[in-house]
């Protein structure tokens, strides 16, 4: 077993844990987005680690990293679009006040 791979994956696990805590515990939409960004960063670390230590010759591994970066950008754009609309109509993006979204 390669110790570097385990270290990199552990960092990914740490980022995932922190991000999950943040996404669940924060009340503000923007802060929740930050938690999601951390979770995606964890995915990035894992993908690069798998590429480097298991399949360094297969470039599809690096391509997946680019796709995840795309997902990060899209998530930010759509999230902020929703945040702007919500802020305009309700005056806040606090998720505790978004009870009407509950089905």
């Amino acid at each position, binding site marked *: 077993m390669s110790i570097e791979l385990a270290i990199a994956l552990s960092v990914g696990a740490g980022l995932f844990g922190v991000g999950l805590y*943040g996404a669940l515990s924060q009340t503000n939409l923007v802060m929740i987005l930050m938690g999601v960004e951390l979770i995606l960063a964890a995915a990035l670390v894992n993908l690069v680690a798998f590429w480097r230590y298991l399949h360094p010759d297969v470039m*599809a591994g690096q391509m997946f990293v680019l796709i995840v*970066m795309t997902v990060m950008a899209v998530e930010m754009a759509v999230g902020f679009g929703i945040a702007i609309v919500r802020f305009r109509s309700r005056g806040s993006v606090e998720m505790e006040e978004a009870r009407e979204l509950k089905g």
Partner: protein
Amino acid sequence: MSVSIGQSLFLIFFGAAAVWFGVVVFRTHSMVRSAIALLFSQTAVGAMFLVMQAEFLGVLQIMMMASEMSVMAIFMVMFMMDPGGLGAMDMTHQKRLSLWAGGIGLTFALAVIWLTGWGPAAQAAPAAAEQTAALGRELLGRSMFVFESAGLTILTAMVAATMVAIAPTEEHGR
């Protein structure tokens, strides 16, 4: 077992920095500090890519996150009730549940990582210049469809987010 001490040490250093800045994001009260801490966490992740010899991806990550997180910072200032954090108000809910969820996720992932036999590690990665060229061939060759759909997704998201966010005016709206 292949151990390259320098690589492991740098991975530990930047990894610890990434996780620590990630924790700072949710511990500080100042919203701009929170966004900048997330930026430095992502930059440390980019530095980890550089340590793992993925030069293009590392530089790209460091570049993209600088702009992304700066935009994050201004949204924080716009939408928060107390962006400077001088009031030190608490903005969390279901804290115990979240801690448990994060902790269980972390423990589970760590157990999987350290209990799995990952097989032998690859020794050498291709040189940076070859890697960049090979990535380009991959993107515009075998994986072109995936790459193009990612581009299309970004375009759609840009248009949709702009449409949603434009203020309704007198002549066209409501």
